[in-house]
Every structure is written in C-alpha cells, then in structure tokens.
C-alpha cells in the first residue's frame, strides 16, 4: 500500500567526499528507527528558486520518499509504502 504524506521526519546521512555523494543511513519515523538498506534513486527538482533533493530509499520492509529542502535543510517524508497492492 502506498501512503502519500507531507510530514517532517528525522534522517541520518553520511557524506562521502571521495564520491561526492550523500547517502541517507536511517529514517526515524513514529519513534522507530529504520536503517536504510538501499537508496533506489536520487533526483532533484526546483519549485521556484528552491532546489529540492528527493531520495527514494528502502528499509528491509518499507519504502520512503524523503525530500530535502535546500533552503531550510529540513527533511520531509512524502511517501511511505510496503510494496504491496492496495
């Protein structure tokens, strides 16, 4: 099931200077820590002049769409899914 949201979320990241890559490591959601097993895709878009980075990441059981606002450096959780049909 896919749930569309727009809520603040805590995300732990690392930055690898050799690859110049930011990698989300964990998502803290509803008091539970979900280690990120895989970053499926990373893309960007602009709304007005504000640049947003979107990380599509998966824990063992859940998928999270995490959006970073580069103006405020705040993360939002925009989608959560278990990969199963509705």
């Amino acid at each position: 099931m896919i749930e569309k949201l727009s809520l603040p979320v805590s995300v732990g990241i690392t930055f690898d200077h050799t690859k110049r890559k930011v990698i989300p490591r964990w998502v803290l959601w509803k008091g539970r820590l979900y280690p990120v097993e895989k970053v499926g895709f990373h893309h960007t878009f602009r709304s007005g002049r504000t640049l947003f980075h979107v990380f599509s990441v998966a824990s063992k059981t859940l998928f999270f769409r995490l959006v970073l606002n580069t103006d405020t450096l705040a993360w939002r959780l925009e989608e959560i899914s278990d990969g199963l049909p509705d």
Partner: protein
Amino acid sequence: MDYRTELVFNKKPSTIMHLDLNSCFATIEQQANPHLRGKPIAVAAYSTPSGCIVAPSIEAKACGIKVGMKVKEGKLLCPSLIVLAPDPWKYRNVHLGLRRILGGYTDKFYPKSIDEFVLNLEGYPAYQKGMFNIGLEIKERIKKEIGEWITVSVGISPNRFLAKTAAGLHKPDGLDEINRKNFKDIYSNLELTDLCGIKTRNAARLGGMGIYSVLDFYEAPYWELKAAFESILGYYWYLRLRGWEIDDVAFARRSYGNSFALPKPLTTIEELSPVLSKLVEKTGRRVRRAGYKIQGVHLAIVYRDGASWHKGVTTSKVLFDSRDIYKIAFRLLARSPYRRPVRELAISVFNLLPEASLQLELFDDIGRKEKIVKAVDKLNERWGDFVITPARMIGTKEAVIDRIAFGGVKELEEFTLNT
C-alpha cells in the same frame, strides 16, 4: 529529390543507434522503490478505476496489461497490480542522465521522446570501438550511473527506421543490428504490423497490392508502393526498407499547448472557465519563457460521449499577456455549440513570433503591460508556479498537474534549456 527506383540495400556501415528505455516510467519507479521490483506495477494518469495506464512494467505486460487500458481493466487482468501516479521529475532526471551519457559518444544525438534516443556515430572517434561494443558500454554505464534496474533496448542500422526496428526485436534489454547481410532473415520473421507506421489500415492498403509480409514489402517494386500509398509515402517506405535515410528531419515548433482530462464531468462555462484559465496561464508562461509572442489561439473540447469540437482564431493583435489569451479562449469556449459533460479541455497558441518590438496602441499602455507580465512571471519563477494567479483560477489546485507529453520532446526542449 532524385527519385531513384533501382536501389539495393544501403551498403553504408551501420552508424545509427536507437535506444529505447524499456517500460520507461514503470522501470524507473521500480528503480526508485526496490520493493516493487519483479512485481506487476503500472503508472497511470490517475490511480482511480477509470484512470488510463500510461506505463505497465515488464511483469504487468506479461499479464496482458497494455498502455491505454483503464486501471480497472488492468486490475481485472492482474488483481495484484500496483498502481502508481506519475512522477515527472523522476523521469526527467533519468532523461537528463541518459543525455549526459550519450553526449559523450557523439554530438549528433537526438532525443525522440522521454525514453527514446537516436545517435549518429558517423565520423566520431567512438565509432572505432565498434557499434556493438558501444551499445554494451552504454547499457553498462546506465546501470552504473543511473540505476541497476534500468534496461535499454538498442538497435543498430544504417538508417533511423531500421535502427528503431532493430531495437524492438528483443525487448527488454536487447541489442540487435539490421544490416545488408542479415536484413532478409530479419524481415522474414517480422509481421507487417511490427513495423513502426504500419498498422491495420496501412497493412490493408498493402494487402490490396498483394503485399502480405515484410519481405513482400521489401521486394515490391516502387510503382506498387506508390499505388498502395497513393503518395510520396510509398517512396519513403521504398527507401526505409533498403536502409536509406529519410527520417532525419527535425520539425520546428509551431505551437504551444496544454490540455487537461477532467476527473469529473463539468458542463457549464462557469464550471469550465477556471480550468481554462489555468491552462491559459500555463501555456502563456511557457510561450513567454521561450521568448515568443503569438497571433493565434485554438480551443479543443472532447466530450464524455466521445464527440469533440474545436475552433481556432488568428488575431490581428500580437499577444503575450495570458489575460488577453484567456479573453479569446473564453470567447471560443462560449461559442462552442454543445453543453454536454466535458472530458478533456485543450488550449493551444500558434503563429509564434520571436521576440519583436510591439505595436504601440492608442488606448492601452503596451509597454506597461509587458513590464507587469514580466514582473509576475519573475515572481512565479522565484517562488514557484502559480504563486500569483488570476482570481478566476481559484479552486483549480489539482487541475492541470505536471505531466510528461508522450511522443514528442518539445516539452523537454523547454525543460532542458531551463536547467
């Protein structure tokens, strides 16, 4: 053109490569969400039961789900189908990634749509690697640089048409060449309708001349094809099937337009005008951003019962302000003779004029108007689309959402120019 009609298959080496991203939107969604991989999924314009499926995954295609089906039809065929809404920026980012990769091999690469590219490697150093090796290298780089789930079918040939045909031979993840040595073998395994551009009506035309297979089509003399198509198209097919180039034509943009499929049936002008206003705002902004003014407006309406109505007008005044375009579009809407539930509303503007000095008017201050429009555009660009809008657009928040057009790359031109 020199109409030579005694041609053999082109002896030129295969320098054209066609790349086709397999099940584009669905594959990208599976790339983004690893939990969806290996499952039947479909990207649909709307996830409601009557929403139109725009991209089924390879697994969904195996269940018989096709592009254009309704979501409810897809779910009947495959109850475990997972339906997703389109995410245009995700697909545009993949498109840009592909452009980055392909641009390293040749300057002559042409995006044909969001998921199709044509490369001409003739005369470029990369050609020395060999076309097959380049195809394999591109596939590898896509997996490494864009995503491991993304696959492309690659076709190689002396011309664009046969390169596209070759790319369709083994989907997904194919790599095939059609050249003067193997074309007859390949033609003998294809149906006429496997050729891009030949569907039932053209197949019937050809059948009328006794042409029933691709091999018949190839072997038919020019006069037979001319008689079948009753136009220059017969000669174009004569060239295509012999590996000669006829499709390397780029058409200039002649119009800008936006359309919206209404999720609920609206009938009256009062109901439709806010949606029309949003369509005009969007189109107007795109035209101005591209540096054009216009002298023509066209409105098309498709009704729920399948009927349609359209009307275009050429204006004497040069237009650039969305408010002026709206006035004309609204007049067109008011002139539509039918009051039935509308399924789709489409606006387009034509007679594009590159930025030119404006004719001053006696009563209107055109210079001031242009400054105001530019200021509003700047505000919208700075703070996001539709920050400042006409009041008549109130209530259209979910209408005219961001979409990727199929079949053309004109919209992508704007997008890539602005990134």
